């Protein structure tokens, strides 16, 4: 593996981890709202969140490009007010990964929250616990398996993100080049050996992530 290849691996893992961390708070909040509350527009939000799963990733990338380009509504705002450019930078990579992973996290976490018996949350309330305490001491620990699973799934999805990333971030060597983009580029250039090395790294990283998650969950036995 060349230094450049290692740089691509490190960049991809770092940005995928960042994207996963960024979607955790809103993802868990939305999952909880979907699992435990009824509100107007709920089914619309539910559908909108699932869209990146079914729309072609390239189409999602195009939407992001329009929104976050310098002339787009959000990109223009960020550029003028905060001096931040998104498109064709590492931020665009993180954005594409976050948007594409978000539905996986929300779905897993929602199912996990729904699996927590309401009776336990109700009893916690009769014992004087306010909403946040009920969530952090009862709901979240009992949903931990599904939440951790969903987080890893989101992370793995982020690692492999391709279609949305290539549109909104391009494939700029040393700046926005991720594992998937590099593999594609190497194959295009006919450098199969390079592509296979990156492929092996992708598999190893994904394997390590899933295995670590399983290990974390085994270390936290129930009932103690």
């Amino acid at each position: 593996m060349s230094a450049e290849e290692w740089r691509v691996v490190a960049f991809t893992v770092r940005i995928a981890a960042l994207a996963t961390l960024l979607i955790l708070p809103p993802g868990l909040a939305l999952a909880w709202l979907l699992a435990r509350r009824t509100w107007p527009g709920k089914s619309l939000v539910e559908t909108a969140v699932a869209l990146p799963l079914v729309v072609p990733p390239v189409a999602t990338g195009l939407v992001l490009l329009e929104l976050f380009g310098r002339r787009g509504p959000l990109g223009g705002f960020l550029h003028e007010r905060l001096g931040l450019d998104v498109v064709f930078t590492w931020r665009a990579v993180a954005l594409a990964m976050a948007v594409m992973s978000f539905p996986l996290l929300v779905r897993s976490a929602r199912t996990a929250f729904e699996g927590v018996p309401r009776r336990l949350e109700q009893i916690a309330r009769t014992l004087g616990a306010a909403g946040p305490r009920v969530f952090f001491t009862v709901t979240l620990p009992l949903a931990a398996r599904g939440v951790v699973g969903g987080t890893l799934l989101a992370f793995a999805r982020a690692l492999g993100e391709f279609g949305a990333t290539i549109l909104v971030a391009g494939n700029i060597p040393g700046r926005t080049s991720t594992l998937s983009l590099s593999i594609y580029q190497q194959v295009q250039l006919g450098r199969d050996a390079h592509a296979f090395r990156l492929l092996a790294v992708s598999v190893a990283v994904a394997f390590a992530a899933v295995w670590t998650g399983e290990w974390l969950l085994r270390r936290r036995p129930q009932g103690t």
Partner: protein
Amino acid sequence: MRLALRRIRLPLAGFELALDAELADDATALFGPSGAGKTALLDLVAGLRRAPSARIALDGRVLTDTAAGVELPARHRRIGYVPQDGALFPHLSVRRNVLYGHRPQDGGPGAATLEHVAAVLELGPLLDRGVGDLSGGERQRVALARALLSSPRLLLLDEPLAALDRPLKARILPYLKAVRGEFGVPMLYVTHDPEEVLALCDEVLVLERGKLVARGAPREILA
């Protein structure tokens, strides 16, 4: 204790819970067959469920008044709830379960302490165990301890012995009597077992399909 249950109207599956009563005894049984609306009534008192019409007050303090738009959140009611299956937190030890709602600072001088409750309910040897390997009777004692340690003004007990076999019931019943004697917390006790009513309660309300069909001293009503 004075528990006012006024203008209660709550549609349930196939019938309506309709009740207007005031309870003044320290141990009152809600007696009746399964599906009579007993648990729904406990949920209303605990603030875990809302009814289209209800006015509930405990010792003059209004907990629910639908006409006035009052609905005190469950966490401010100071009502201990022991549900049928115990509903213990499966990820916490027995000690952390019973201390979950413990408020030593605002319990007052007569407030229950862990030592006292553990002694009365004989929980000492269980405290550092997980709840997963407790027996049915042990689970109920832990649930009872957890409710008592939250310094409740009223205890709601929902068929706490229903899941236990007869010999075990006979062993747990004295604990409930001890709780009455030792802590003096008034209780509303849901059951469909006349024996438990006779052993524990001063008054019994008989519910059938959401309606109060009889009330009085257990010996007269259940004889």
